[in-house]
């Protein structure tokens, strides 16, 4: 059974009276424990697709099913809930709260998920432990390196035990060494059974994934799976 299924997805914007088809009839299914890279030049619609999969956006037309739930006709509150429970986001710019400690940053999704304080603390600590930051829990983002910040962000994405981890150019703001470390973490998470979706325009990043989708002008141009 597929985890995610997108059927005939169209996303059409009206820019200055002109119709822009950001997604022009996209069909994708993603299974559990897949390691997927979404690629494409800017304007290809890869960001739109990522937002769609991440339940930040809904399609103009088409059906989006996430673990049996129909996302395409959800309201803002339902979308917020599904993002909170089922999706872990990792952003290119980390997007940590600058004044909160690493542990508190990781707790944020749990706070919105209404998890009790003591449970929250231990879950956040475990998530930080799993990305190798057990000794940096009480540091604030400005006391951490770029790579460490991104690891905090990964811990934050993991902490709710989501169905998918959605990473948008996760190494884009990092030096190559830190970038490699981050990719190792993603590889390990995949090994451990997580479903990972990477959005990137770097081939060597996409090479970590076992399946690559290339978008062009809002259409899937290539959907290629590595033979294991």
């Amino acid at each position: 059974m597929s985890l995610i299924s997108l059927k005939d997805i169209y996303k059409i914007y009206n820019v200055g009276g002109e119709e822009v088809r950001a997604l022009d009839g996209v069909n994708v299914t993603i299974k559990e424990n897949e390691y997927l890279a979404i690629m494409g030049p800017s304007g290809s619609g890869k960001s739109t697709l990522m937002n769609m999969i991440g339940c930040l956006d809904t399609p103009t037309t088409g059906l989006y099913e996430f673990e049996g739930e129909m996302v395409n006709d959800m309201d803002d509150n339902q979308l917020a809930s599904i993002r909170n429970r089922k999706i872990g986001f990792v952003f290119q710019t980390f997007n940590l709260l600058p004044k909160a400690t690493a542990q508190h940053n990781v707790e944020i999704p749990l706070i919105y998920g209404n998890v009790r304080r003591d449970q929250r603390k231990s879950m956040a600590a475990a998530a930080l432990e799993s990305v190798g930051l057990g000794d940096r829990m009480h540091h604030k983002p400005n006391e951490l390196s770029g790579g460490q910040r991104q690891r905090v962000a990964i811990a934050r994405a993991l902490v709710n035990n989501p169905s998918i981890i959605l990473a948008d150019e996760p190494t884009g703001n990092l030096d190559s060494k830190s970038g490699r470390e981050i990719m190792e973490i993603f590889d390990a998470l995949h090994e451990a059974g997580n479903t990972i979706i990477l959005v990137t325009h770097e081939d060597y990043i996409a090479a970590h994934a076992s399946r690559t989708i290339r978008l062009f002008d809002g259409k899937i141009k290539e959907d290629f799976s590595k033979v294991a």
Partner: protein
Amino acid sequence: MFSLFIENFRISISAVLANKMRSLLTALGVVIGILAVTLMGTLISGLDKSFEKSMEFLGKDVIYIRKYEWFGDKEWWEMRNRPNIKIKHADVIRERSQYAEYVAPISEWYTSVKRADDDINGVRITGTTDTYAMISTAEIEKGRFFSKTENRSGSRVAIIGKDIADNLFENENALGETFQIGNYTFRVIGELEKQGKFLGMFSLDKQIIIPIGTHRRLFTRRGWSGINVKVDGTQLDNATEELTALMRQLRHVRPTEDDNFALNRQDPFKEQYSMIKLAIGGTGFFITVLSLVVGGIGIANIMFVTVKERTREIGTRKALGATPKMILMQFLMESITICLFGGLFGLALAWGGSLIINQYFPSEMPINLALTALGLSMLVGVISGLAPSYKAAKLDPIDALRYE
């Protein structure tokens, strides 16, 4: 939901503390508003106290028969031509009035008193009878009032007010000592308790009471005279009516003529005072509302800036699962917190201010008003935070995440 409330409160506190100066300037309107309303309350409470005390001095059941009206629209020059109040009428009133319980004639004159090198100018010298002690609310602190005999014989004995005792006798025991009123030597037989100022205008303690016979003989044809009548407090109006008729008869006022005397009571003071109080309260209220409105606009403005500054944070929070309502609550809480800080700061200033006011006249900061003021500042926070918070709640997460 409770942990979310705590989280929001934490965010608010740290946001306020991160921008201390900005928060303070933002909340200045609220600070001034709260300061105005509480100081006004303190002032009114102080005025109330001092007014109550002054009214106590007049007594609510005493009718003051005088040549001049204390209040009213009569011209002073009209009243000046009235004949003086004759103190012998006091005896007639005592005999004939049904309502009068105690009657004391009063003669007053201002002059200087001295003892050795010390002298005091403008001391009120009141001549009266021993009955005065029954009418006056001022207690004798030391010694005694003069007796009927001393009154009749025109003894040169005096009961002195607190100011006189403090200035002429300082640390000595004044009882039995002598001093000069004008050129005449008097002996102190009693000291009055401290009475303070009458409506903050003149000191009631700068007074000396002597027998009226003595007063008439030494200071005759000077100063003014009157009659104080203590009546049953529940019969004030009847007593006034009766005394008016009696006085008209005694002074041969024809039926077609107006009264050529005045029966003064404390009630018109109350009316005047409520008007003053209303004026002070109205001004304070106006200042408060104005500064809270201006303050509220300032807070709304800074909250819009805050929402703009933290657009990416809002986007991130939404991506992590915050619903629009949660975001709304977060920014509303922040706006309320700024106002609450402003309110507390204003209250602290007002408390300091009330201590200073208290030095000059006794007053206290009304607790209820302080709590209402805090509530009011929170209300300002809610109202002014509503629009910016709603804007934050409605932000599209994709646009917010992309915001540079």
